[in-house]
């Protein structure tokens, strides 16, 4: 990214998070922030605690120590669906789509937090329920256009190839119109072309929908190209934090990835 990008205040601040499962320390004293509008990467070797970090942000895990500040406010211990309502969406490392539903329905489910018609209105399909359904369909169709998945609109997602499933999952997260989007290895298992497409979608989503994105990825080329800032974890500790160039030249990071000679 050549042009200097500037960002607003932090949307999410993680302060001194420690998480342990029994005697296993998954995260130790981690602090970093995510600024409004940026693409933030979280990298690290296997088992470094990246996914645990996302699970903490998501509310699946509750850390033993530390605070999370979201959108300028300290967050209490909330359930994942309440956190979704506050504006955090996410995709999973191993696809977690609703396999029995069509692409369209998966995306419409992404709109769940924005829909409010009551059960009686829905039972009659009349008034608010129908209006709401059409209105959100419009919004979902924009995302379908954006991701170029028009042709699979009504296909049950269980039948789609892997690459498309990943794309639909991104669509479902985008449909939530969240303030912060967490992507857990959006490019895992893809071929080069699919990766390039996915990169384009992520950058465009960041650009067009003003979504702040935090992503975990193992493909270093992708990480260095996409992200504005990178945080590096290893064994549950923070190794480095900074722009891709800074991180690339950080000796501790190089050691963690390539190993250190003990000679």
């Amino acid at each position, binding site marked *: 990214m050549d042009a200097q990008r500037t960002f607003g205040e932090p949307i999410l601040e993680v302060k001194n998070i420690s998480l342990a499962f029994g005697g296993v320390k998954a995260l130790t004293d981690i602090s970093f922030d995510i600024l409004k509008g940026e693409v933030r990467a979280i990298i690290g070797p296997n088992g470094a605690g990246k996914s645990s970090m996302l699970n903490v942000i998501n509310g699946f895990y509750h850390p033993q120590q530390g605070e999370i500040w979201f959108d300028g406010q300290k967050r209490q211990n909330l359930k994942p669906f309440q956190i979704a309502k506050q504006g955090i969406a996410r995709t999973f490392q191993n696809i977690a789509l609703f396999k029995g539903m069509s692409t369209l329905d998966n995306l419409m*489910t992404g709109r*769940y937090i924005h829909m409010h018609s009551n059960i009686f209105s829905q039972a009659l399909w009349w008034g608010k329920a129908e209006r709401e359904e059409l209105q959100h369909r419009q919004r979902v169709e924009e995302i379908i256009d954006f991701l170029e998945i028009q042709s699979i609109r009504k296909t049950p997602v269980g039948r789609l190839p892997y690459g498309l499933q990943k794309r639909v999952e991104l669509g479902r997260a985008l449909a939530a119109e969240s303030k912060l989007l967490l992507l857990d290895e959006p490019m895992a298992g893809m071929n080069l072309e699919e990766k390039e497409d996915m990169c384009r979608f992520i950058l465009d989503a960041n650009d067009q929908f003003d979504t702040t994105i935090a992503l975990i990825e193992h493909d270093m080329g992708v990480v260095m190209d996409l992200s504005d800032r990178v945080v590096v974890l290893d064994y549950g500790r923070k190794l480095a934090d900074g722009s891709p160039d800074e991180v690339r030249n950080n000796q501790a990071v190089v050691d963690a990835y390539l190993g250190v000679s003990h000679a």
Partner: protein
Amino acid sequence: MFYRESGDFKTSYRADQQTFPLKLDRWVVWLFIAFAFLVVPFLINDYWEKSVLLPVLVWSMAALGLNILTGYCGQVSLGTGGFMAVGAYASYKLTTAMPELNLFIVIILSGGITAMVGVLFGLPSLRIKGFYLAVATLASQFFLVWLFNKVPWFYNYSASGQITAPERTILGVIVSGPNAPPWATYLFCLTLVVILAIVARNLTRGRIGRSWMAIRDMDIAAEIIGVPPLAAKLSAFAVSSFYVGVAGAMFFMIYLGAAEPTEAFGIDKSFLVLFMIIIGGLGSIVGSFIGATFLILLPVLLKNILVGGFGWPTDLVAHLILMIIGGLIMFFLIVEPHGLTQLWRITKEKLRLWPFPH
């Protein structure tokens, strides 16, 4: 004109989202409903009412209810018989306490009461899943039947322990009790079933239905997208129990006329409804109807053929029917676990490419 899908274009999302997007489907359904409402009442006789039409309608309603819970929300329940008993006893208590109350309202209220009981027994679903939940609902089956046997207040202290449907009229026509004409009971049940089937379709295609299916397919992802598991599961239990309760009230009030819980609402009924939705198709409104019709009419058909046609002894045929149905259930589970609706869907897909599938 042939049945085909091409050429039926939509220009608005409203048109695209309707229940039957194909014009021909719509016509067939409308004709079918018109036939059921306008023609059948003139042809109906006692035999058709008691052994074909009413059972199909009542069990379709129960299958609809269970399909919402099991097919759409993925929560297995073996308590259907017990919940039908709740509906039946609720309608009995309501209509004997308030004889003036319209039977239609009585039955809807019975559904409401069953919904509340269903929510109560649905609470464990938040902690337990799958087979374990099935066992928990099995407990509700036995508990409810025991309760209705044990507490005399439920059967108004009658000496036999039975409940008997009193005679009630709607718009001056008798619809319950032994003197009700076949066309009236049929029309009454048909109206309930058609209305509630449309409601079920609307619920399952909208926001709430998607939240159920999301919980069924991937509960973690559902929660991450903002679906509260508590609300989704309990609302599925409530709506499902409502339908099952209405089915129970219809079963007792209109069809049986008199009931005794162990006999009428036993565990075999819970399994029957479960088989219906498995054979018809889980997660499909039409599938509930197909499954119920299939399992109710097959014994009638076999009996007519084997006893009436071949002149075989009745007891032999009764046992043969049990074996044939058991065999069919196994056959379906192996060959087409998604039920008859899936079979229809596959047929359509094959025909779309026929005769050049490659």
